[in-house]
């Protein structure tokens, strides 16, 4: 192997981190334009890191197992919401309410994750589009359950939750009893900044879990499957089962992630909250420099900060620049979708190139 010159190293660094760098530059232009104060932005980022990191982290394990971006994470989000609805109905509040919601949601998430994994095993090679559509499909079933089942089949006592017709859950649920229960479990304030320490501790714990998990036999098996399913299978690793486990873990974690997300927001949009969860989490991860086949913990945090910085800043920047805040709002939607499209395309393109190169290397020296 030849040694790389400094120039080559820098070039390599720039290329492999192109996406985050572009976003940093964009933010550098947009922040002064928006006119937001530094304190405001820092506070906002602190909150949003706490709010979103867990959801984004839940995407890592399926990527390790070679299943791409788990668009099916919305399944987990739905499970989490069902837990929250029930707990709100029972009026269990505070940290205990959150824990109970998580405990109720876990079996649901495991069940949905199993289904998702089994479906994806039938669609090897197009996991992403399948999990994406599966998300929509399960969303339909979720709506069926929550809009028609709750209050009829599942007794809901709290009249505040139920639509006026007597069954079905209302559009917005106030989670006041659980709001910030985890965030400010350990109350610390730095100057005027509120720091959601409790959530950060949870996230840190979870990062440790991921690091530890990668060093287990199961984690090793997932890495092997992610790189070459055929070889892993021939070595006796149960491929399909392991893939299902990867998706189950991701779904359960997404479920917890959604609970953390909603306790921070404080209100739940029964029929929309989960929809956006998947898209924003995936966009954030990709902006952090992850690809369809490789994601690390730093990618998550860099991504969340950059994505939400753009998210907060762009409407104001749009207003200052174009005189319309709407432009900025559409711009951030465009960026969220655009970044996913570009990342997916780049990845597919690279894979095609790799395949060609691998073929060429077979020829050897002619």
């Amino acid at each position, binding site marked *: 192997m030849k040694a790389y010159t400094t120039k080559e190293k820098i070039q390599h660094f720039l290329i492999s981190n192109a996406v985050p760098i572009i976003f940093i530059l964009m933010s550098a232009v947009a922040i002064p334009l928006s006119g937001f104060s530094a304190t405001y932005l820092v506070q906002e980022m602190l909150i949003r890191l706490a709010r979103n990191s867990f959801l984004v982290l839940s995407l890592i394990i399926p990527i390790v197992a070679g299943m791409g971006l788990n668009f099916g994470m919305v399944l987990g989000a739905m499970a989490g919401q069902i837990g929250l609805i029930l707990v709100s109905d029972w009026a269990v509040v505070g940290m205990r309410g959150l824990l109970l919601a998580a405990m109720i949601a876990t079996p649901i998430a495991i069940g949905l994750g199993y289904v998702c994994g089994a*479906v994806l095993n*039938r*669609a090897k*090679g*197009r996991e*992403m*589009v*399948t999990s*994406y*559509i*599966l998300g*929509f*499909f399960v*969303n*339909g*079933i979720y*709506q*069926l359950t929550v*809009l*028609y089942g709750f209050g009829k089949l599942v007794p809901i006592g709290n009249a505040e939750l139920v639509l006026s*017709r007597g069954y079905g859950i209302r559009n917005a649920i106030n989670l006041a009893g659980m709001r910030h229960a985890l965030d400010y479990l350990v109350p610390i304030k730095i100057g005027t900044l509120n720091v959601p320490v409790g959530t950060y501790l949870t996230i840190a714990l979870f990062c440790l879990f991921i690091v530890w998990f990668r060093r287990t036999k199961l984690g090793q098996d997932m890495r092997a499957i992610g790189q070459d399913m055929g070889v892993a299978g021939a070595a006796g690793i149960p491929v399909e089962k392991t893939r299902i486990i990867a998706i189950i873990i991701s779904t359960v974690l997404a479920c917890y992630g959604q609970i953390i997300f909603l306790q921070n927001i404080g209100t739940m949009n029964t029929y929309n909250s989960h929809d956006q969860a998947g898209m924003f989490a995936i966009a954030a991860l990709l902006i952090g420099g992850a690809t369809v086949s490789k994601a690390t913990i730093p990618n998550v945090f860099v991504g969340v900060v950059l994505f939400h910085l753009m998210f907060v800043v762009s409407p104001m920047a749009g207003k200052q620049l*174009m005189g*319309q805040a*709407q*432009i900025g709002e*559409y*711009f951030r*939607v*465009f960026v*969220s*979708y*655009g970044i*996913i*499209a570009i990342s*997916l*395309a780049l*990845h*597919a*393109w690279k*894979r*095609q190139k790799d395949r060609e190169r691998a073929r060429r290397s077979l020829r050897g020296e002619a």
Partner: protein
Amino acid sequence: MNEKLKGFIEEAGWPRVIIGLFLLSLFVAAPFVKVRVDASISDTLVRFGMNGILVLAMVPMIQSGCGLNFGLPLGIIAGLLGAVTSIQLAFTGMLGFLTALAIAIPLAALFGTAYGLLLNRVKGDEMMIATYVGFSSVAFMCMMWLLLPYTSPTMIWGYGGSGLRTTISVEGYWLHILSDFLSLQIGQYLYVPTGMFIFFGFMCFLMWAFLHTKTGTAMTAVGSNPEFARASGIDVNRMRVVSVVLSTVLAAIGIIVYQQSFGFIQLYMGPFYMAFPAVAAILLGGASVHKASMVNVVIGTFLFQGILTMTPSVINSLLQTDMSEVIRIVVSNGMILYALTRKVQVKR
């Protein structure tokens, strides 16, 4: 008999049979819950005509092996640009409609070419990327609708704001220009938009004819076995681009036909989810991810739109609740999911 039935079900696939029976039962149940069958049929027919071409737009890409065109919004945007520009120019009647087409088609061809070139670089991952290309183009156009210098007072925000409205009425321009051509009104409720059917039929004929030309044959071969096609001297990438362009152009035409019947142009997030019903419809009609025909288009559109029309009216009167939205979600995505996870069966 039993064998025959089994064979039929196997051929059609369980979901299709279930949905077919479901639709049939809706029509049977309709009179009992005091829903007028003729009005329902009329609704179904109109929606069939409105959506037919959008579903037809799926055919070329499926045939050429590019999969389901989740990037349909790209073509729809071309159609929207055509429609909006035609109104800006204040052309009315057939002239306005044709102007919209004349502007939309070259734009769609342009978009389609770029989109096709992109899809050629990402073989195997077309569907996911197509979805997000569609989404991001819609989001991009949201900004453009605000910025583009359209001035027609029917289209821009009234109160001093700039940019186009979210919905623009085509009344006074080319509302029902196709639908009302030779249309029939039977009794009070049954309305048949003959002109729209003729146009849809003509489009289907063009598609059918194209598939019978040398190029069309080559395109089918590319979808069936790209290696074979290449060995026979076909430029596989070019054929794929041609199919994508065709699909995009059809989407542009389709949305204009849709608008003249619907009466409104929906901008901004309007085209966002438009690909999904079209995809679901063609799959419902019996197409697979690799093969589709005109029959699939017609049957699929009819079944799918039938369910969309019938569920709100019948189910609502039956259960006193509006479940149509949920049923639409479950049916359309269930259908796509079924097609994606179906193992390719090799019969010998």
